[in-house]
């Protein structure tokens, strides 16, 4: 069997050319930041004058990044898991069933995504402070769940629609309760979807500045708060140190992503199930 990528039509060439162009420029974008973050000083030249890791060290100490990164990882991990746990069942119902009031429910789940945090961030933080959640990790997690749960619902719905309901019926007939149907049947079939929406939520959570800032306590700051601070706080900061922070942020996300993709490849599953003969 020949590999498909080689059997290229003109459109294929065009598409691959666009992809390559995209990547070359992307590499430029990322590379320039990376290089700059290690640059001692970089003026009007192709590469910096000298190289140093000083910016990383500075940022690391200034923000106590060890703590910040671990908080970020824990918080975003929790948000991902919880939002999938809460969101997926709801997505399931919305995908499978027509019931009176479905549109209203759908709208309710859409709103948190549509509404900028400005509208609800402060009152939300107030509520969370009132019940003693804010100021800790739990507050950060709960606040971030507000846009995340709907995100999971929205992304998962089409995936669930794709799964033949007969498969579920079969599982039920074999004595699987709802939980088992989810865990043993739907989850494996939905791996690509779960992964996609989990990554989506992860990225949003790690990058969600506003809600996190409003609900975080001194020991529950996340990386993005530090990053935004370094970028926009009054005062002077070398460009390179912001670059270094951004690189660390990206590196962390990258590790998470690569770990995620190590375990599941978004397209592997169905390809395994239904072989594409070409």
């Amino acid at each position, binding site marked *: 069997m020949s590999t498909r990528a080689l059997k290229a039509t003109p459109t294929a060439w065009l598409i691959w050319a666009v992809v390559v162009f995209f990547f070359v420029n992307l590499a430029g974008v990322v590379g320039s930041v990376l290089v700059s973050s290690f640059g001692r000083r970089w003026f009007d030249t192709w590469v910096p004058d000298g190289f140093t890791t000083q910016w990383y060290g500075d940022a690391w100490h200034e923000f106590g990044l060890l703590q910040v990164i671990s908080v970020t990882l824990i918080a975003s991990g929790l948000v991902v898991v919880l939002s999938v746990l809460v969101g997926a069942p709801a997505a399931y119902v919305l995908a499978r069933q027509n019931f009176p009031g479905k549109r209203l429910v759908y709208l309710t789940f859409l709103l948190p995504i549509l509404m900028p945090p400005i509208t609800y961030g402060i009152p939300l933080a107030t509520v969370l402070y009132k019940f003693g959640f804010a100021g800790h990790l739990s507050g950060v997690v709960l606040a971030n769940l507000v846009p995340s749960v709907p995100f999971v619902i929205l992304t998962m719905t089409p995936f669930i629609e794709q799964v033949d309901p007969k498969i579920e019926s079969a599982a*039920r*007939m074999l004595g699987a309760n709802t939980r088992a149907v989810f865990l043993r049947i739907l989850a494996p079939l939905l791996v690509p979807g779960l992964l996609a929406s989990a990554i989506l939520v992860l990225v949003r959570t790690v990058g969600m500045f506003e809600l996190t800032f409003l609900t975080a306590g001194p020991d529950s700051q996340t990386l993005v708060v530090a990053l935004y601070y370094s970028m926009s706080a009054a005062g002077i900061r070398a460009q390179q140190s912001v670059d270094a922070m951004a690189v660390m942020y990206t590196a962390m996300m990258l590790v998470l992503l690569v770990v995620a993709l190590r375990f599941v490849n978004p397209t592997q599953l169905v390809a395994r199930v239904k072989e594409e003969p070409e």
Partner: protein
Amino acid sequence: MSGFGQLRLEGVGRRFGTADALAGLDLTIERGEFIALLGPSGCGKSTALNCLAGLLPLTAGSIWQDDQRIDTLPPEKRGFGMVFQNYALFPHLTVRDNIAFGLRMRRLPKDEVRRRTTAAIEMVRLEEHASKLPGQLSGGQQQRVAIARATVLEPSLVLMDEPLSNLDAKLRLEMRTEIRRLHQSLGLTTVYVTHDQEEALSMADRLVVMREGRVQQIGTPEEVHTTPTTWHVADFMGYRNLLPLAAQSVAGEVVTVPIGGTTIDGVAQGTVAAGEDVVVAVRPEDVKLGNEGLKGLVEVVEYQGRELAVEVVLEDGTRLHARTERKVQAGESVSVAIDPSRLLVYASDRPAAELVTAGLAV
């Protein structure tokens, strides 16, 4: 929930939009019975099975297991097994895991799961394919996985939706025997949907013949086979010769009808009055080619293994399907005879003209 005395369906119905896929189904299933649901494509067999399984909520009626109402229970609480018409195998699990799934759900010990799974795989002859995924199986292999998956649990009630439709004759016979054996040895109760009358006749204790969502006849294989209650059932049960005629005279059960320029006698099924429109039903096997009887010409001959399927056109243009071991040829002129006791006469429920367009032979 395993083991019950009887299962009662009372006026069970299921509606899709405005169309009744199933209506007013009353049926009592005794423990240990083997019931076959039979009927033309789209008549509601799968719907009935799905309602029984709890996969389709009823839109009318109720289902009782002894004194307990079960139509409100979710499928996994009913403890029934089911073989789906399109198999519905778990695409991400191997054959072995598909079959073991139900056992695992019951949290049986690992050893037992392995043992019973292996036995089931052997039963359906898939030893070599045990670690394939369903997408890598042939149609018949998939169907066998579905059978093994449902029966390995030895559920109190097994529902099977055309479980053998993709198997070849030999394997089908074997699987039939296997299913009956399981049914008997495990004391299962089985509801079996099939489109194959022979299968239904040979396997079931009782048949339920359906048409357009409604039950037409319930009875033992012999009853249904020899005395269908309506001509629709007769039609379905292989009475390929259905003739819209008018009863000439009625004497007790014996009805005389005109055909091929002469008259023949038949047995009235239900009340038939002289002069009324009737539908006459007879099987091709009961139309004997011989030297006396109705005269006609052989028109179509089809080789069917041991026998020939023959179409004979009588002098008045009536076509009769017959089967014979005699090597006749198209164009030959023959005589056909019909045993009066095998000629069933039904009061017609529609004007003759309509019946003709409905495809009844003339």
